[in-house]
Structures are given as structure tokens and as C-alpha cells.
């Protein structure tokens, strides 16, 4: 029996797609930033350590919502100030509109990068130092030792935390509706206001998130098996 979504069905699907895209792109950015910040925190360079500590402390201490509004509105004002300067100097008339999707990806990526940083840092520290020492002793460069030894061993410790961060990130994408992005929450909200049928729209939205997390659990299970190689020895 097909459910009547009062014409909102296709838009809900579009919204779900936007949620998924936003979440995946933010995740990639967050992982990259987290890895960089964790490496900086553990590096021998004092300034890098300070910078990374400020990043992870400041970002984790401020609500996502505030940061998102700050970046979206403040970001636009900042871009405008910059283009005004350039226009005044060069006599041109440029205007750059900060795309809400990009703003959403950047904000979520920057915020969750700070959480990923802490997860990665803990995981790096959990790797037995003898493993890294052996890599050095056999003539590996820092990068090679990272790629072949430190990273694969670290991922085993990082995965549970990364998975947790990913779940929280996915659900935080709902916040982008406040900066004008039509994700599935915003569409459900519009539909509910128009039809006064909250269950009809909000339950599918909940199921939509559940569907994304279920699919991602399969991916995480695969990664877990991969990085457990050599540890879970009855499976070898």
C-alpha cells in the first residue's frame, strides 16, 4: 500500500540525498583535519602543538549551532569585506555569495575535525612504540613508517571513536536547515506545517537517518575486520 506523502515524497528523497552528501563530505574534511591536528599535537614543533591545542579546545568548547551561524553569517560578512577591499583597490565589482552547502561542509568538517583530532591522538599513543622503532631501525622514512606501520596499527584503536564521531556528525547535519539548506529535516518541517501530519513526515526522516547509519555500520564492520588483521588471531 503506497503511502500518500501529499506530494512531498520526491523532495524528502532529495533532502535525504543532501543530508548524505553533506555528512560524507564533512566526514572527509573532519578526518583530514583531525589527522593533521593530531599529528601537530604530537609533533616536536612547539608552535604546531599550540595551534592544534587551541583548535581542538576552542572548537569543542563552543556549541555547533553558534559556530555554524558564526561561520555562515560572519563568513559572508568577512567575504564581503574582502571583496569590497579588492573592488575599491582594483575598481572592479565582484561579489561572492557564500554557498550554504559549502558553509555547512566547512563548519561541520571543522567542528568534527576537533573531535577526530582527540580520537586520533589517543589512538596514536596506544600504538606500541616498539613497532614504530622497528620501522625506524629498518630505514623507513617518517612518512613510510606512518603509512605502513603507524596508521594501520592506530586505526584499530581509532575506529570505535571515529564511528561514534561519525554518528554524531551525521545527526548534526540537521542543524544546516537553520542556514537555509533544504535537508530532509527542513522539508519534513515544512511538510508538517503545511499538512499538520507530523508522524507522516518525521518518522520517515528518523528512518532515513537510521538507514544511513545502518549502511555505515556495514562499512565500519568491514574496516574493523581489516584493521583487526593479526590481532584477532583465530580469524587468520
Amino acid at each position, binding site marked *: 500500500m503506497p503511502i500518500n506523502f501529499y506530494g512531498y515524497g520526491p523532495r524528502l528523497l532529495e533532502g535525504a540525498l543532501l543530508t548524505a552528501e553533506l555528512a560524507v563530505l564533512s566526514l572527509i574534511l573532519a578526518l583530514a583535519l583531525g589527522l593533521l591536528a593530531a599529528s601537530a599535537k604530537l609533533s616536536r614543533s612547539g608552535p604546531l602543538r599550540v595551534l592544534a591545542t587551541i583548535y581542538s579546545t576552542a572548537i569543542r568548547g563552543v556549541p555547533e549551532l553558534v559556530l555554524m551561524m558564526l561561520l555562515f553569517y560572519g563568513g559572508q560578512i568577512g567575504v564581503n569585506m574582502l571583496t569590497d577591499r579588492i573592488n575599491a583597490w582594483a575598481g572592479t565589482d565582484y561579489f561572492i555569495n557564500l554557498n550554504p552547502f559549502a558553509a555547512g561542509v566547512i563548519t561541520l568538517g571543522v567542528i568534527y575535525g576537533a573531535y577526530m583530532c582527540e580520537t586520533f591522538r589517543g589512538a596514536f599513543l596506544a600504538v606500541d612504540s*616498539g*613497532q614504530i*622503532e622497528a620501522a625506524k631501525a*629498518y*630505514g623507513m622514512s617518517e612518512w613510510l613508517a606512518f603509512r605502513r606501520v603507524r596508521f594501520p596499527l592506530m586505526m584499530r584503536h581509532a575506529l570505535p571513536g571515529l564511528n561514534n564521531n561519525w554518528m554524531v556528525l551525521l545527526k548534526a547535519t540537521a542543524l544546516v536547515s537553520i542556514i537555509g539548506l533544504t535537508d530532509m529535516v527542513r522539508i519534513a518541517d515544512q511538510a508538517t506545517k503545511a499538512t499538520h501530519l507530523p508522524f507522516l513526515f518525521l518518522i520517515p526522516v528518523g528512518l532515513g537517518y537510521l538507514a544511513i547509519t545502518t549502511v555505515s555500520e556495514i562499512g565500519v564492520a568491514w574496516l574493523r575486520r581489516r584493521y583487526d588483521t593479526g590481532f584477532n588471531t583465530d580469524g587468520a
Partner: protein
Amino acid sequence: MTESYTPLVVRDLHKSFNGNPVLEGLSLEAHVGDVITLIGSSGSGKSTFLRCMNLLEIPNEGDVIVHGEPVKFCVKRGERHPADWKQVERIRGKLSMVFQGFNLWAHMTLIGNVIEAPVHVLGLSKKEARERGMALLERVGLADRADYFPAQLSGGQAQRGAIARALAMEPEVMLFDEPTSALDPELVGDVLKVMRELADEGRTMVVVTHEMDFARDVSSQVIYLHKGQIAEAGKPGDILEKPGTPQLKQFLGPRF
């Protein structure tokens, strides 16, 4: 080609940790085929000495010269660093180390461990490295364990595997850092047997050990360290049979 190079020369090495001197002017020369054992009580600096040779610890003073090539150092903000890490990596590739705790890479199979550095550091093809690696595992009696992970091996097997990994680099000098200290007594013999065979075939080795029988029977030179200094050095027949210092007498036990 001249035969007269020296695989490893260490001159007047000093090392301190946080201002506490650990090594105070140690020197050593390993010629081709030498087996030099470093003995001494814990805290005497023997492991640190060994770790300075492949720059896992950076000596504060002194030279490390591998196959005629001195490691270049520079001083930055009062601290001594290698001037060229690429050089250090190249030199480390010539000095394979066998660790007390094996340190086989846990996420790779045994054969994966053996071919890892030959493929990624020396640039051998996987096929060639594998052939060589399997021959080495055969030598140390582990051919049937090639596809096992380190966690599935006994300590003795893991250490013999680690020796195969070291041999795969075709090193100038092999550095052994207490290779039998973490093993159950009944497993020590297998590892020592492999090491004796390596010595017999003319490998150049520097061995930190507590195995006095090994030091006596196998080494060409024994160096006794006490409080970061070379207290005695010489042929095992001399210094182990007729120790000159009261410290070594005490270290060797009630026989003296």
C-alpha cells in the same frame, strides 16, 4: 674493490639523558666477521650504546662511521641532531636490529614482515623479496609459519622470524639488543643456535646479551661496560676467564 673497509666504527661516544651521563666516551670497531658482545649489569648503558649505533638514540658527542661513511651531525639550539635524515635512513638500512621484544609488525604476516623493508626501503620487487624471504624463513626453521601473524607465534619463533627480517636487509652489521631476554628458558636455545650459525658464516654482529656461554663461545671480542664506560675489553678467553676489575669479577659471579 678493497677488502679493507670496516663495517662499523664508533668513536668516543657520549650520551646523557636530561643531564645524566649514560655513556662516557665509548669506542668500538667491528671488522668483517667480528662478533662483539656487550655485557654489563642493567643500567650500565649497553643497550643505549647499541641504540646509538643505528641512531635510535642520538649521541651527544662522538662519531658513528658505517662502511667508511661518518654520520653527519649538526647542532640546533644547543642540541645535536643528524644533519641529514636521509643519510640516517640509508645507514639504518645497513644495520639491522633485532630487539628484545621482537617488535615484529603485528598487522603483517611473518613473510610480510620479512619482505616489508626490502620492498619499501631497498626497492626490491615483491616477487624477489618473497623468494629471498622464504629462503630465510627456511633457514630459521619457520617456512611453514610464513603466513602466520606474530600473535600466533611463540616467543622463540617470533625472535627467529625477527632475525630473518634482519637478514633480509643483507646488512653490513647485525645489532642484537638482548635477543633472548624476553624468552622462556626452553626457547632461548633455538634463538642462540641461529645466532651461532650466523657467527659461523662470518656475519658481523654486535650483541648485547646476558648469555655468558654465548659470549664465551661465539664472540671475537667481549666488552664489559660499567657505569657508561668500557671497564674491560678483550678476547673472551682473557677477560671472562681472568677478569681484571673487581666489578667484572662480581658481575661474573661466585666463580671469581
